[in-house]
């Protein structure tokens, strides 16, 4: 199976550097989440891999070969791009058919894909009347048409309902388990953290993290504890005396750092301090992600 190798990739549009010296590898057999805020350069990176845009520097290859040099590219790489690439006047079936012909793919495969993505009933309807979700399903059918070993999907769950989201997650999981290379982009960590084994995070076109999903989520566990007490000042004194930090005080609510919840409970009990509430605060995934994409220096090791 092929991996996607991205090396020193750089793309500028006028004065804007959309992708800035980006290097990472997407390995087979797992789902790699490609994360970054909107405008981080995810779509541009995918367009560069597909040869739709020309890089100003660097190279992107599929199993060592540039996409443009692949003989039947859709049999090696299946892509769903964020921007619509369908003529509204053409039917779903005909859209798949002309692409199949161009790659020497049997028309029977078109029918299979229509079944797989659940569009068989509307295959002869013109795609101009399709909902966003139906368009996405057709895009997935296009990506899978050539039974490719590499899949690149740009924000695939956009416009899908909950059932659709679940369907696509299962599908991608299965494809990765078959040993394929799956790159899945999103601007929401929560969306890919369920599916992805590995995460590549970029910001401003630069790599900020390249690590396993578990590793990234662990970074979210800072030791902030929310304590509610009628005597916030006494609590603050106890906390400081034991090496903790007071992060914020708001009336009877105190945010404590550098001490665990059990430790704070013990300190309060030993000093007969009344506590009304004692809650460890786990930073949300999105907070972690937002914080991460604000960091300036790259973290994590290349794999």
């Amino acid at each position, binding site marked *: 199976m092929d991996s996607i190798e991205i090396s020193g990739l750089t793309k500028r549009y006028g004065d804007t550097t959309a992708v800035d010296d980006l290097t990472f590898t997407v390995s087979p057999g797992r789902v790699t989440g490609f994360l970054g805020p909107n405008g981080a350069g995810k779509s541009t990176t995918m*367009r560069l891999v*597909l*040869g*739709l*845009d*020309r890089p100003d520097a660097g190279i992107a290859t599929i199993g060592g070969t540039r*996409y*443009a040099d*692949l003989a039947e*590219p*859709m049999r090696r790489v299946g*892509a769903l*791009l964020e*921007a*619509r*690439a*369908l*003529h*509204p*006047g*053409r*039917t779903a079936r*005909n*859209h798949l*058919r*002309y*692409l199949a*012909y*161009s*790659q*020497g793919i049997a028309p029977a495969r078109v029918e299979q894909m229509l079944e797989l993505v659940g569009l068989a009933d509307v295959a002869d309807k013109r795609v101009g009347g399709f909902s966003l979700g139906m368009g996405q399903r057709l895009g997935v059918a*296009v990506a899978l048409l050539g039974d490719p070993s590499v899949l690149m999907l740009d924000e695939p769950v956009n416009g899908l309902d909950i059932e659709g989201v679940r369907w696509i997650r299962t599908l991608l999981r299965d494809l990765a388990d078959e040993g394929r290379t799956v790159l899945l982009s999103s601007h929401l960590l929560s969306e890919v953290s369920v599916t992805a084994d590995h995460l590549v995070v970029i910001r401003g076109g630069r790599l900020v993290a390249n690590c396993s999903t578990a590793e990234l989520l662990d970074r979210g566990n800072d030791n902030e504890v929310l304590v509610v007490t009628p005597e916030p000042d006494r609590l603050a004194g106890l906390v400081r005396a034991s090496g903790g930090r007071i992060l914020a005080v708001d009336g009877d609510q105190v945010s404590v750092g550098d001490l665990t919840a059990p430790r704070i409970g013990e300190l309060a009990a030993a000093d007969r301090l009344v506590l009304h509430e004692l809650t460890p605060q786990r930073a949300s995934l999105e907070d972690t992600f937002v914080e991460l994409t604000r960091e300036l220096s790259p973290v994590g090791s290349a794999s």
Partner: protein
Amino acid sequence: MIVTYDRLLRAEWTKLRSLRSSGWTMVAMVVSSIALGTLLCAVVAAHWSSASAADRASWDPTNQSLVGTIFGQLAVAVFGVLAVTGEYASGTIRASVAAVPKRTPLLVAKAAVYGGVALVSGEIVSLISFFIGQRIFQGRVPYATFGQPGVARAVLLAGVYLALICLIAMALGVVLRHTAGAITAIVALLLVLPAITAALPTSFQNSVGRFLPEQIGGGSMGAVVPEPHALGPWVGTAVLAGYALVAMLLAGRMLARRDV
């Protein structure tokens, strides 16, 4: 690469057939060109008695019967432009280029399929127009028969003219990437440029006018006796084919270099 080309031709043929707009454009082209030609032939035949001696001397019934191609060239130009700009407007170009990342074969296949359809439609238009026109002239004004020297050549080259206009329009579509811009450009080339030339001194008209596509169509390719100052039929065909080739080479270069 031979193997790939038959696939690409099939893909482009599927694209063409699966859009109603392309079929309707061609039907509209055929029907309205023939209708306009028929109408104008009837008008000329009706006014033959009042025609001047000079008009009668230069009377070319074949050329007259092909006059509908003036309209046909516009329809065929729209057909060619839309074949390309329709892909840009809808974003299909990204799917097409992802499927054929080398891009040049994509343009070659598209030009072959759309140019081929324009050629067949163009020949249908000129053959039907010719026979209807001569039928109208018969018994009223001097008319031509298909077997006369130069007649078959003029009728068939009128169809070739439409196919070459389609190719030039496609190339403009690739270069400009916008429907309105490309249609404006081809209309300027076919209609506005001749109008401007006509307003210039006669010597200039005679030396430059004959190189304009529209003049090559009416004065060289579709004429049994080339009009005064016009290029000969084969030279005219070669010049127009040269324009189409240069336009396509430029388009191919731009398509290969640009981001889509």
